[in-house]
């Protein structure tokens, strides 16, 4: 297992490096003087000179890059148009998005995985059709549209739930009230993917020889399905979850915008609309880095679940 993880960490570092280079070059690729872009479009020569000095714009690119990375590692991602620390803004708004993402993921898993298992075990029967159709529709629906409709139905028409904004976790009930619709909406796509994946994976597992052995041992059907078959299917599904994380990030951006949640995702859109390049740079870097780290965590979970990697001492 050690070797596997070491390789994964190494790969993650490489990816981080390349991603950061791309972000760095991206900002430098903006047509026009980077000093103007990085400096809130001010034309004041003194200000521009200060910016050139701060970001070392007169030095060769590699030097600039190293300096930038150095600053980033020290938590300094520059200041945005309003002279606020980018890093600070991100840090304040990130937990909100994390809460949204984690809750949505949990919801998707809790719904998607059992549904997939049930569909696989009752193949061809009505419950199977219900699950597969639901999953198909869930895949085909743009979540932001659902979000809009939910707002109209539940908030505006029925006044059941608040339409927008966010309440901190210090008020847990209000917090969940505000999070309920966004989480449901965001989890739809992921749940649909999990349902389909789980169903397909379980059908394979249930047809495997070791399931026949389990039955021949006289184990109960419940034990056969939920322990022997499921355990194997979870392994493949873990890799799928890893691949869906990117979609989750994209989803967070859109859902926060619709529901008026001032999280990291909404920050991204604001940054683009305001052409605040320092902010954009910081946001994209953090998003990419966050993805790489979370993906690594998923890889770790995978290595724990898969005994071929966990106990790699083979004597065969």
């Amino acid at each position, binding site marked *: 297992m050690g070797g596997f993880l070491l390789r994964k960490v190494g*790969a993650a570092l*490489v*990816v981080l490096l*390349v*991603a950061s280079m*791309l*972000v760095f070059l*991206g*900002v430098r*690729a*903006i047509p026009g003087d980077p000093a103007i872009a990085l400096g809130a479009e001010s034309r004041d020569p003194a200000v521009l000179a200060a910016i050139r000095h701060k970001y070392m714009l007169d030095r060769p690119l590699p030097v600039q890059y190293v300096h930038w990375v150095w600053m980033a590692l020290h938590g300094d991602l520059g200041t945005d148009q309003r002279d606020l620390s980018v890093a600070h803004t991100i840090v304040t708004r990130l937990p909100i998005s994390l809460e949204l993402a984690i809750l949505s993921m949990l919801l998707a898993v809790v719904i998607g995985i059992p549904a997939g298992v049930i569909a696989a075990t009752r193949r061809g029967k009505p419950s199977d059709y219900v699950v597969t159709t639901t999953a*198909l*529709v869930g*895949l*085909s*629906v*743009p979540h*932001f*549209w659902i979000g*809009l*409709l939910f*707002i*109209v139905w539940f908030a*505006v028409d029925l006044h059941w739930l608040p339409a927008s904004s966010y309440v901190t976790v210090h008020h847990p009930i209000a917090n969940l009230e505000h999070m309920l619709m966004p989480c449901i909406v965001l989890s739809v796509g992921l749940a649909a993917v999990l349902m389909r994946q789980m169903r397909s994976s379980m059908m394979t597992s249930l047809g495997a020889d070791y399931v026949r052995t389990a039955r021949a041992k006289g184990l109960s059907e419940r034990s056969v399905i939920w322990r022997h078959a499921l355990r194997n299917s979870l392994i493949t599904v873990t890799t799928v979850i890893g*691949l869906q994380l*990117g*979609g989750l*990030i*994209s989803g967070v*951006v*859109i859902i926060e*915008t*619709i529901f008026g949640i001032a999280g990291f995702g909404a920050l*991204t*859109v604001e*940054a*683009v*609309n305001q*052409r605040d*390049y320092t902010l*954009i740079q910081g*946001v*994209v870097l953090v*998003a*990419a880095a966050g*993805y*790489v780290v979370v*993906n690594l965590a998923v890889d770790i979970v995978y290595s724990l679940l898969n005994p071929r990697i966990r106990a790699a001492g083979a004597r065969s």
Partner: protein
Amino acid sequence: MSVVDATALTSPRARRRVLLRKRFLRRPMAVVGLVIVVVFVVVAALAPWVAPYSASATDFNAILAHSSSKHLLGTDELGRDELSRLIWGGRASMQAGFLATLLAMIVAVPIGMVAGYYRGWVDTAIARITDVLLAFPFLILAVGLAAILGPSLTNATLALGIASMPGLIRIARGEVLALREEDFVPAAVANGANDFTIIFRHILPNMTSTLLVQATLTIPGAIIGEAALSFLGLGVQPPTPSWGVMLQDAQSYLSQDSRLAVFPGLAIVIVSLAFNVLGDGLRDIFDPRTTR
């Protein structure tokens, strides 16, 4: 001695096509999906002739009107015909979906095939590149591209295409990994074929069914993606319609008239469902393990 009936001799390829067609027709859902896709594509392609009005023809006497004989689906907040906007919008959205997928296939498939064929350090390098691509979800990519080049349909399509590449690279790689073990590969080598020929003339034709299925299943994601990007202002710029732009417009009038939000969304759902059902059906008929 029996006489051989020449008309009964069909090539294996023709027989297979007949078999596939029969299997497809046994799946009503897939057929419906195909019909819907074709209808949408044709209507979108023939927009200039099919749409009753132009996308920007305003009529300030009929703002937010309900459906009437003049405007089958009513009008929007500027008096523009909703049905026409839907048709023109569909044109932009589906175009983005198709082009993004096409771009992704053209770039990703060869890359994936090379990774699967040569393996070794080439495979590892491509795996890293794929990881880097994955680290930028389509929205973040679109944000980046919009920042550098300004928001536009082209940039949105580009972002969507790039975001679709990792999945396709992996699939192409997986296919090649399996196919390179087939007997026709050493046979081709023995006949003096070089790597390029083996990959593209021998292995690729065996992958077409998988690639077709994947393309069909990638398009709806791209269409939804374009809608999302345009909704956020990162794609098609108003007043040019796309389904995403229409949803953005509808957002401001949600409390007054939610009708405007329903139609574009419904259009997206129908088209996506159709593509997904079609893709699932295709995957089924190409799978040698299915019995019908």
